[in-house]
């Protein structure tokens, strides 16, 4: 095991303030701030593991049905606008960069830099959600939402559909066209779950911007920013996989 020896410290006396100098944010069940920060970071990583497994179930479902209904998945993915998808990817990657820079600002005690980075991350996140709203709206208008008057028209008669024409789609047989509903179920489940995590992240970002402005994270106690950064990067990684799986199944012209 990697940490086979515990952290050695001299036993300290009954917990009384003023006995030893320690910051106010040190919780009393920890020996020192290093242990506390270490534990918090490790806890965050374990939480991210649970998130990996949570999305794992959705990825499993996706891979199975893509294997079974490949033509339906191709046709359905052509209904997603690659422009918005790529732009969203760029926004999220940029927000990961600004978040990493934010952590650096906190570590190097640059308060205004940190606030700027957090605000930029916030704006980029909002931008992502805005584009998602545009995309969802389009799906709703075209009746591509499973369970809500789902329409097979775009797949049975692709020449009536702008996106299908652009992609050069041929009409699908009826049963395969039906399976596009499975694609969209997974599309909404996966991007919806991802968006939910984005919303939670953005809400916490909002809170952090206020606290950062008050100097809470630039006095040596960077744990909250660091661990939130981990969460944010994780959400970015989920999108890094969602993007090619949902948008880029096959964009080359059908032969």
């Amino acid at each position, binding site marked *: *095991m990697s*940490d*086979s*020896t*515990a*952290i*050695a*410290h001299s*036993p*300290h*006396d*009954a*917990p009384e303030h003023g006995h030893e100098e320690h910051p106010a944010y040190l*919780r*009393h*069940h*920890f*020996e020192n701030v290093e*242990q506390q920060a*270490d*534990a918090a970071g*490790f*806890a965050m990583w*374990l*939480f991210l*593991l*649970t*998130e990996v*497994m*949570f*999305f*794992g*179930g*959705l990825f*499993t*479902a996706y891979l*199975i*049905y893509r294997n*079974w*209904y490949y033509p*339906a998945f191709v046709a359905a993915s052509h209904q997603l606008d690659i422009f918005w998808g790529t732009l969203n990817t760029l926004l999220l990657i940029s927000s990961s960069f600004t978040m990493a820079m934010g952590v650096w600002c906190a570590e190097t005690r640059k308060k205004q830099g940190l606030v700027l980075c957090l605000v930029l991350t916030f704006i980029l996140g909002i931008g992502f959600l805005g584009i998602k709203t545009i995309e969802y709206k389009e799906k709703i208008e075209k009746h591509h939402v*499973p*369970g*809500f008057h789902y329409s097979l028209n775009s797949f049975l008669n692709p020449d009536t559909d702008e996106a299908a024409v652009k992609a050069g789609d041929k009409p699908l047989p009826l*049963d395969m066209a*039906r*399976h596009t*509903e*499975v694609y969209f*179920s*997974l599309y*909404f*489940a996966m991007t919806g*779950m991802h968006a939910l995590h984005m919303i939670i992240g953005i809400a916490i970002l909002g809170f952090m911007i206020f606290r950062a402005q008050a100097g809470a994270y630039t006095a040596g106690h960077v744990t909250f920013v660091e661990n939130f950064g981990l969460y944010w990067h994780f959400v970015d990684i989920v999108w890094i996989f969602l993007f090619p799986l949902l948008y880029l199944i096959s964009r080359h012209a059908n032969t």
Partner: protein
Amino acid sequence: MSATIVSLPDQSTARIPKVNFLTKENGLLSWLLTGDHKRIAVLYLISLTFFFFIGGALAGLIRLELLTPQTDLMATDTYNKVFTMHGVIMVFFFLVPSVPATLGNFLIPLMLGAKDLALPKVNLLSWYLYVAGGILAIYTMATGGVDTGWTFTTPLSTHYVNTNVLTTGLAVFIAGFSSIFTGLNFIVTIHKMRCPGMTWFRMPLFVWAHYAASILMVLGTPVVAIAIVLVALERTIGIGVFDPTKGGDPLLFQHLFWFYSHPAVYIMILPGMGVISETISTFSRKRVFGYTAVAFSSVAIAVFGFFVWAHHMFIMGISNYAVLVFSLLTMLVAVPSAIKIFNWTFTLYKGSITFETPMLYTFGFMGLFTIGGLTGVFLGTSGTDIHLTETYFIVAHFHFVMVGGMLMAFLAGIHFWWPKMTGRMYPEKISQLAAVVTFIGFNFTFFPQFILGTLGMPRRYASYPPEFQVLNVFSTAGATILGVGYLLPILYLTWSLKYGEIAGNNPWQATGLEWQTQSPPLTENFLVTPIMDHEAYDYEWLENQKEKEVASVG
């Protein structure tokens, strides 16, 4: 049976320490807003007992119905609801949290020499989530119940029933988060908060067992969470992911469900095995044989446990190749469990064995878990499984491991650490009686079910062919005895809170850091951070301690 290792202080002068975690603060809010892992453990113990008795009452109803071949006590649909809720409550609201949330929460910081778990607020949140999930489960029962079986198999649960699948699913989802946070807390604590000198291989095996179970909690539970979310979406919107008419596969649900629920059975049993390691050592006055093997086998069970889930699906339509692979892997996972049983047995050999109540439960565990585990191997063999699955053989198998194994381990642990948690001893004679009654009742209840299974009686049926009645009557008679056996501890343990003998620090003369502090412990556990300078289960070190004490008292 007159020999005992119990060593109590002089009862005429002994007092419960005035300052302890129970008396430190008063008032309801000090309990409801506590961060103290010991108080949270007590909160869990109370709520768990409550849910256990609801689950037990439902079991009683099942056995009452099965006294006669016809469905005369309740309608078939009602019977389906009764066994479903029995399963949901017993699995998710009793067995999964039982030892970890009560004994694990209470003892892990003490055993490691820490002041608390790493994340006390998350610990409290865990309890609130558990209670919220539990209340929702009761609400589900009160408003008509759910009848899909605790396994929520699709497409029954998504398309063919109009019972409270969503609310029950939500209750389980919430309880799942409770479990995740408990496991997360344990892993961080065990890695980061061991006291000086407490290396990994000096930790009590109880901690190792919880570490392994916590890995399963953290990695496995989210998968059942997403399975439930998908069922909810399927039921509400009809997304089609499990619907064959839309191209979905109902079996996908089972893959996702059992990916958690198989490791879940190891989440349930590993902490119990941790208890057994402690009690078997204490009541044989001997270190656990093969400490390293037992420690590593706990982790091995956790790792291998992730590779075998489809043995619950042999007849469901998975490919023959999958059946082959999962059957082979299931054979592998039995090995670490067997290693533990062997090591515990070798611990007994040439030990000084005494038969206090925790040891009686321990012996019960050893025998019944072995039978349950062996029958698990029979079921893991796909050739026999296709005949025995969905019969009472399965029911008997999992009740042997879960009730004969886990529940006995839980009771062993409760009795063993009762003096530490409350400062008082439970009454020995009646508790030994309860243990024996439980053992007898258990065997009468569940052994006939093995026979019923091989004879072909299907599970989850309210009515059955009349030739099965005799065995069913035996089973119900046993269940009544079992019920008495479980009721008795409630009564005498409650009694002991006021009238039990004062226990002192270490009534069992056990090793382990928790026994070096007062009973009940201080809120901060230790006034001075302990330094671990001896191996686990070091009875010679304990002798030296006692000699030093005797020498210094004078």
